[in-house]
């Protein structure tokens, strides 16, 4: 797995993780996670930007927090009491993400109203975004350390942001295109997402991702 990569010099391996997560292994276009908000909030560039940035931020932070939770709490528990860490992660990660998003919403409202008005309104939307949970779960399967998790989360978030921005851009253009009625709306969006995924697969030779 990525274990080979992490044995390389630290900086190089982190860049590899970031690049792999954002581009070659894009969580949205290769794993198809976070599709729901991807489809419904990609009508306008402005909303897509706000939501995308909120996802970048929350994915980075929660992947790191969950990494600490996994390594410092769940693994020791597994060793001491035999509680299988892998079955616990699902329920705990999602609770952590939900609580974190709530906390952040309050925090941002208190600290910066400008930021709250541009990003904060999207936070409730991503409490249950599966890309964010997916990022935490993949972090576990890849056995990343804290720094690696942080970069991995950032990469996933950036990848998701990139994908929704691209989609919003395409859909803005699409407004003037003639689309067969049966495919308009979600249909054409899914087809575009598929073509985008194919395009992103073109990057897959650049980094060894198993």
């Amino acid at each position: 797995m990525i274990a080979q990569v992490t044995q390389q010099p630290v900086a190089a391996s982190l860049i590899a993780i970031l690049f792999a997560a954002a581009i070659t292994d894009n969580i949205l276009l290769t794993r198809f996670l976070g599709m729901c908000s991807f489809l419904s909030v990609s009508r306008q560039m402005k909303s897509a930007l706000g939501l995308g940035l909120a996802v970048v931020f929350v994915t980075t932070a929660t992947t790191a927090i969950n990494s600490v939770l996994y390594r410092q709490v769940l693994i020791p528990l597994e060793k001491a009491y035999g509680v299988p860490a892998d079955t616990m992660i699902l329920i705990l990660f999602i609770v952590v993400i939900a609580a974190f998003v709530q906390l952040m919403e309050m925090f941002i409202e208190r600290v910066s109203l400008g930021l709250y008005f541009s990003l904060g309104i999207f936070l409730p939307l991503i409490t249950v975004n599966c890309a964010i949970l997916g990022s935490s779960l993949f972090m576990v399967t890849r056995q990343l350390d804290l720094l690696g998790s942080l970069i991995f989360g950032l990469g996933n978030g950036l990848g998701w942001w990139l994908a929704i921005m691209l989609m919003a851009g395409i859909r803005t253009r699409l407004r003037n295109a003639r689309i067969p009625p049966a495919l308009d709306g979600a249909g054409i969006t899914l087809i575009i997402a598929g073509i985008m995924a194919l395009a992103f697969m073109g990057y897959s030779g650049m980094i060894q991702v198993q």
Partner: protein
Amino acid sequence: MKRDPDIQRVEERMAPRVLSLDGFLGADHRPLEEILDADRRDVEQMGLSNQLIGRRLSELIDKTVAMLGRPLHVGNIKATYSEAMGRMPCPWADGRFPKGEIEILDESKGLRLLVTPSSGHMIEHHGFYEGRGSRYRVDPALAAELLGLTALP
């Protein structure tokens, strides 16, 4: 389905008893995005655009409102404004329009359309023709026929 919060806010304002008694959506239970998409599709299939229909409807509406209740005759069309006091905000909150309603009749073709002073604005700027079953639903095909609009070259 997760929704864009901006669209959701607009849709909430369209509910009955928020801005008007029966609201803007009538018996239409589709999400606002779908209503907008479906009408845009129909309009494009006729070879027209929301901007064109909206602008032409606005012109007619503005002239009719200026008649203060006296019927306006343009060709075969007779348009009458039933006045009301006060102004009604657009659900997108980007303009306020006189209250009241306008009946547009073309007796030679047997066509009738009921609109409000904000209908033209909502079509031109937001592609919104109101929901199915709404009192002021503007059927794009009917509007195009009444306004004498034919496909763009």
